[in-house]
Structure formats: structure tokens, C-alpha cells
């Protein structure tokens, strides 16, 4: 995505060049080129750059698609994460998902006995897979500033190979929150909960990002 910004200036340069545009933001789609007129209008000198309208082209991802975690949020998440037993919390989160939202079992026909709550809670494949998923969350916590990048490959995998409805990512995120709450009652303050909710939402969105 290209962004065309115009810098406001009090008066145009002599010798033609500036665009008679006020401070505005024009979004161009991928692949569309700036016209020859634009290239001609690039400032030819430092002075000209200071004194005339000229288009600045920035080609990069728009920053506002990124989730920003504050220092406090990152610290809260990290402090709780340090105490998390990944196998226990991961296994229980996945088990609860399969119990409370039984249609999610559709992805796990190969896991054997999922016929009762106790069977699911005790199922070794559920525990192993829960641990795998929560380890991935650990990776998220180390890359909280670029979740979309971190989860790009996993997102493609879940879409193209696993065919998982992204709603499941939201449901599992909520299961993780509930298990954390039951395990860490005193430490799971409202602020802690809010930070983790933001993280699980962001991970779910990052995993959905490559769906097509």
C-alpha cells in the first residue's frame, strides 16, 4: 500500500513544480504508479524542499493495523507467563474448548476417546496438543510487536491445510483466559485480565490474517 502525503507550504516554488494540494492524505492501491508529473515535482534542492508543496511517497504497511501493547501490558503478561505450566494450562484450555464447545471436536477425530468430560480432560493427545498450542503463545509473547509477521506461516497452515474456522481461535483464547483465572486467582486482576484479553484477541487476528 502506498501513501501519498502532501506537505503544506506557504507558497509554491518558482519554476513550477508544486501541487496545489492542501495537507491531505491520498491512498493509492498497490501497483498504481505515480505519474510522470509527480516525479517532475520532486524538490530539486533543500531549499525547495522546505518551501514548496511536494509529494512524499511512503511505501510500507500502515502502522494502524498493528496492535500496540503498552509497557505495563507487556510486563503484566510476562510476569504471569513466567509462572505458567505450559502443559497443564495448555492441556486444560484445549480440553475445556472440546467440552464446552463440542463442535470443535471436528478437528480431532484422530484423538481417540473424546466421549466424556473426564475422557477429554485425561486424553494424552489433547494434553500434548494443548502444550504445543500454548508454546506457540509463548512465541507470541516474545514478539508482541509483530504478531502478524510471527504467525503468518501458522495462519496459512490453518487456512490451507487444516481448514480451521477462525472463530475457534477466539474461543480457545477465551478458554486460556478462564484457565489462567482459575489457576492464578489473586494475580489475575482486572488489569492482568485486560492485558491477556488483548493478547489473545491479537493472536486470533494474526492467525486469521492470511486467510483467503
Amino acid at each position: 500500500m502506498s501513501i501519498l502525503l502532501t506537505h503544506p507550504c506557504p507558497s509554491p516554488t518558482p519554476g513550477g513544480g508544486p501541487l496545489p494540494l492542501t495537507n491531505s492524505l491520498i491512498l493509492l492501491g498497490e501497483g498504481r504508479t505515480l505519474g510522470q508529473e509527480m516525479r517532475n515535482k520532486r524538490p530539486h534542492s533543500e531549499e525547495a524542499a522546505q518551501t514548496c508543496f511536494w509529494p512524499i511517497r511512503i511505501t510500507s504497511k500502515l502502522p494502524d493495523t498493528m496492535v500496540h501493547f503498552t509497557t505495563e501490558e507487556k510486563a503484566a503478561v510476562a510476569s504471569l507467563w513466567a509462572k505458567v505450566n505450559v502443559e497443564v494450562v495448555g492441556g486444560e484450555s484445549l480440553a475445556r474448548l472440546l467440552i464446552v464447545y463440542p463442535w470443535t471436536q471436528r478437528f480431532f477425530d484422530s484423538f481417540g476417546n473424546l466421549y466424556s468430560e473426564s475422557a477429554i480432560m485425561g486424553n494424552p493427545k489433547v494434553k500434548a496438543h494443548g502444550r504445543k498450542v500454548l508454546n506457540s503463545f509463548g512465541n507470541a509473547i516474545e514478539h508482541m510487536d509483530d504478531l502478524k509477521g510471527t504467525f503468518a506461516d501458522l495462519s496459512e497452515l490453518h487456512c490451507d491445510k487444516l481448514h480451521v474456522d477462525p472463530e475457534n481461535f477466539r474461543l480457545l483464547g477465551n478458554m486460556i483466559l478462564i484457565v489462567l483465572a482459575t489457576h492464578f486467582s489473586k494475580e489475575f486482576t482486572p488489569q492482568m485480565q485486560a492485558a491477556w484479553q488483548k493478547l489473545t484477541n491479537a493472536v486470533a487476528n494474526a492467525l486469521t490474517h492470511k486467510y483467503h
Partner: protein
Amino acid sequence: MVLSAADKGNVKAAWGKVGGHAAEYGAEALERMFLSFPTTKTYFPHFDLSHGSAQVKGHGAKVAAALTKAVEHLDDLPGALSELSDLHAHKLRVDPVNFKVSSRAGPGQIWASGAENAAAPPPSPRPPDVPSLGSF
């Protein structure tokens, strides 16, 4: 959500205009759903989803037939649709978010897509009350 008598009348009138084209509309609704809400494709990895696919046409006809049955039983939708509900819940195991009409993230998109179809069917005039279709 309860359908008023006026809603029911509107739905019947709108669906009546579909005439014999229900299967086509069903197929188009599915195609629109897959395009606008790509996550719904995760439930059809075994389908050819390209334009004009025979599988989509066949499935669209099934969906349209179910809608026709629903329109004939507006006074008892839960009863009329109970088998389909069981099928989607227990056998197909589709996440219910896909049945919500107004949710931004989740479909019910087949309904939204269907409403778009009904709003712009080639031969017939625009149905009188698309919000009723939304409730339906």
C-alpha cells in the same frame, strides 16, 4: 427473534418472486458467501469452489430447498428446521457464529448473501422488505 405477521407476509412475497429460480439463487448466495466471507470456505475443503462449480450448484439447490421449506413453515421455524439444526450441530459441527445475521465477524452470510440476491434478481422487481428477510 420473532417474526411479525407483516414480516411473514413480506418474506412469503419476496420468496414467491424467486419463482422457479430458487436453486440458482441458492448457488449464487453460496458463491457470494465464499467471496465475502472466506472463512466459511473452511467447511468445504472437499468442494470445488470455482465459479460455476457443479458441487456449489448442487449444494445451492439443497440450501434453497431448505429455505423454501422454512418459508412454508414460518409459524414453526424451530420445528421445521430441527433436523437441519441437529445435522449442523452434531454431524457437520459448524460453529454457530456462522449463523448470526448481524455479526460483522461471523456470517449468517448465507442469509446476507441471499438478501443481496433477493434485492437484485434479474427479472423480478425488488422485494418490499429486506429487513424482514433479515429477521427471517
